[in-house]
């Protein structure tokens, strides 16, 4: 349940107090698993199978989610889909606000030309990460369509961007923080909300 997270929280500058009473779990590992299974089905349904389909995970936590979706799709359909990794550090418009992010490599293993690309991220908030990701993606070619899958949509958009596949809609206040923790990065799966006022 409310175990202290073993690793650093999302966002380098957030200072988390372990087991703070203001932290509340909103999705368990089971919930995440079910949501990703549903999203995998929805992606297949909407794109009528895996033909021309590619998943691109946004680093850091979108990437393991993209790999999990690809594994589900493999399980359901019997053939896999390519997974790419996108680092949006070089495309952000808020570097001056949040300090220089550490940039990692982008790996797009296949040509984007004519593909139906599903961008995968953990949380959809202002939409600025997705804007940056769209810019980054177009530097690799011209996909036929770009769709967006997120585990959490917490609202407060600052740009005209919406998700095509959503694990869970979570109405939040601006001062609250959503943390998605995934096993590959944080050691275990859960989604918590921080800074709630009771």
């Amino acid at each position, binding site marked *: 349940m409310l175990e202290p997270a073993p690793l650093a929280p999302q966002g380098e500058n957030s200072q988390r107090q372990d087991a703070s009473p203001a932290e509340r779990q909103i999705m368990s590992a089971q919930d995440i698993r079910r949501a990703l299974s549903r999203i995998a089905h929805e992606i297949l349904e909407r794109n009528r199978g895996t033909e021309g389909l590619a998943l691109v995970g946004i680093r850091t936590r979108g990437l393991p989610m993209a790999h999990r979706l690809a594994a589900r799709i493999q399980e359901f359909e019997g053939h896999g889909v390519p997974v790419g990794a996108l*680092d949006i*550090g*070089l*495309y952000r418009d808020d*570097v*001056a*606000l*949040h*300090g*220089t992010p*550490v*940039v*990692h*490599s*982008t*790996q797009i293993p296949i040509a984007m030309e004519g593909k139906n690309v599903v961008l995968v991220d953990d949380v959809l908030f202002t939409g600025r990460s997705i804007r940056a990701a769209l*810019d*980054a993606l177009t*530097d*690799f*070619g011209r996909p036929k369509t770009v769709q967006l899958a997120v585990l959490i949509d917490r609202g407060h958009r600052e740009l005209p961007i919406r998700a095509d596949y959503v694990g869970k809609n979570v109405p939040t206040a601006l001062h609250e923080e959503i943390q998605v923790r995934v096993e590959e990065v944080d050691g275990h799966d859960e989604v918590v909300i921080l800074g709630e006022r009771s």
Partner: protein
Amino acid sequence: MAIQTPTTPMHHPNLVDGTRRHILDLDDFSPEEIELVMATTDAMGEVLGREIKKVPTLRGKVIVTLFYEASTRTRVSFEEAGKLLSADVINVSSSGSSVEKGESLLNTVRTLQATGADLIVVRHPHSGAPYFMARNLERTSVINGGDGWHAHPSQALLDLYTIRQHRGSISGAKVVIVGDILHSRVARSNLWGLTAAGAHVVLCAPPTLLPQEFLDGSYREDPDSSGLASVEVTFNVEEAIQDADVVMPLRLQLERQQAGLLPTLREYSKMYQVDERRLKLARPGALVLHPGPMNEGIEISPQVAHGAQSLIEEQVHNGVAVRMALLYLLVANKEGPPSTAQDTPSGELPRRIRFL
């Protein structure tokens, strides 16, 4: 760190928390900063491998290259790095600018700052000139693109990157720097960078081409240079190259040779040239780096320069990625939290210029 005044434990400006404003030499770089530059260079190398090798990161930023000395690879690779990051790059050289009319360095850099330059890459024949600039600039960052005999940090970082790329890590590698160390800013910066990254450095040169501190061993006693305690010095090239992992011959700086340092060029190349026979003494597959431009047949034989172990072209290629990383790390968050360096400029400025 050793000689900072004992009163306040000063926060040392660094790239990791975004407080560093200038890159003047590697003597104030921590291993963490070097690792951050290496990791960022990996990401920039990926951009260079793309079909569209341009990212919008530094859009709207102005980078000036101010070169008071000849240069091909440093100036071109900084210019290319800036352009691939979408910065506007302006090249100023001493000929064709008001420098020819006798404008002072101070007035030149103040003018460049006033025109809105976010960063100036400077190369200057006088050791310490970039420090003088950094001290007199409030808003503009400075990267030292080579000052006199003193420092050339971006070259040293690309050497570190090239070694790391081929060996996986720098730590534990035996790196031999052979040749005209006295006149070499590349050697001096490499000395700091390599030792900070954990390499075992051996300097090899004729006694006339070594700085005094390395000739008499006093570098070991200098409290400012404690990182260099493990550095070895030898006059014998065969002994130096024995079991080396990396061999780095330096260009014999013909334009800087005063009469009397060498009997003849022929004798120098006979005694110190890195050739195939001597390279065989190194570990199998040892890497050969050269900061360029080369005098083939003097400090390096053509067979080695163009042989299978030579990474010289790769160094030039990596030079662009490393410089992209440096520009990114210095310029991208310039409007971010006000840098503490601004209040304590001395924190970033050198304790003193050493080994000249």
